[in-house]
């Protein structure tokens, strides 16, 4: 008589255990990838904001340069473009701007305008330096100029 060998049954591992393990690994991998991808999105968003601010600063600087070229005075230039401004101790002008470089009382950006000049017998070549500062960091620096001739006294009005 053949002895029936005892069939030792091995209980198969429950498929739900494997599924749980797979889920856990998937969630782990997804979290790590998600964190990296979120960083990329944040970097892209930061770049966009910086370039928008930079563009606004360039347009603002261009307006200031054109006004300065016409008027030859930083005060008059600031009056036309921004309306009001603050004069610092060293004679520079300080203007508070928002993210789009529009005048704002509590803006994130500060524009500092400092003037210098090169005198000659015929007139003065005035130079204005525009520095845009955000969070104590310089985001743009532009230089513009204006030539202010001295009207000859002999010719008429001084």
């Amino acid at each position, binding site marked *: 008589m053949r002895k029936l060998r005892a069939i030792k049954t091995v209980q198969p591992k429950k498929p739900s255990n494997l599924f749980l393990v797979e889920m856990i690994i998937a969630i782990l991998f997804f979290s790590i990838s998600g964190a990296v991808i979120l960083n990329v999105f944040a970097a892209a968003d930061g770049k966009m904001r910086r370039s928008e601010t930079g563009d606004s600063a360039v*347009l603002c600087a261009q307006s200031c340069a054109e*006004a300065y070229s016409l008027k030859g005075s930083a005060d008059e230039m600031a009056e*036309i473009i921004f309306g009001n401004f603050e004069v610092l101790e060293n004679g520079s002008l300080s203007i508070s701007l928002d993210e789009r470089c529009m005048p704002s009382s509590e803006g994130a950006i500060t524009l500092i305008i400092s003037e210098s000049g090169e005198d000659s017998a015929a007139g003065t070549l005035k130079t204005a330096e525009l520095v845009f500062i955000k969070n104590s960091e310089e985001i743009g620096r532009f230089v513009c100029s204006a030539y202010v001739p001295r009207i000859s006294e002999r010719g008429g009005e001084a």
Partner: protein
Amino acid sequence: MDSRRGSGKADIVGTVGSMLLFLVFTVCMLAIIAAAASTYSEISSGFDRSFTGSASLRYLTNKMRGAESYEIIEDGTGIAAVNGGITCVIYYSDGGLYEKNVSSEDKAASGGDKIFDIDGLKIAEKDGLYEISVSCGEDSSSVFIGGR
């Protein structure tokens, strides 16, 4: 028998739990993909908006700087820039910035080719300067340029 029943219940609980976890995972995943898509859409439309607005302003100012003379036409919604006998007429109409080059004195704001999609253009004189404002949607940008 009881142990079999007990293990059966455990299996059901385990299965339901796994499926719930799977459901939560799927919902989170779809939500994150939706959020990422909307962020991309915002970045892309922000890029379009700022590009169109500032590019059209720069185009206008560069045209004015390169002209021998220019004048404002159509009540501040266009300019006619003359250079080398050619008049370049740039004007706003019907949701866009249009441009045409004519050799005659014709400064009519019509018959041009669309160069930018914008929602408004206004050119005003202020203290000897020209203020050019372009609006795209809710945003608007402006720049001053010296008169000629």
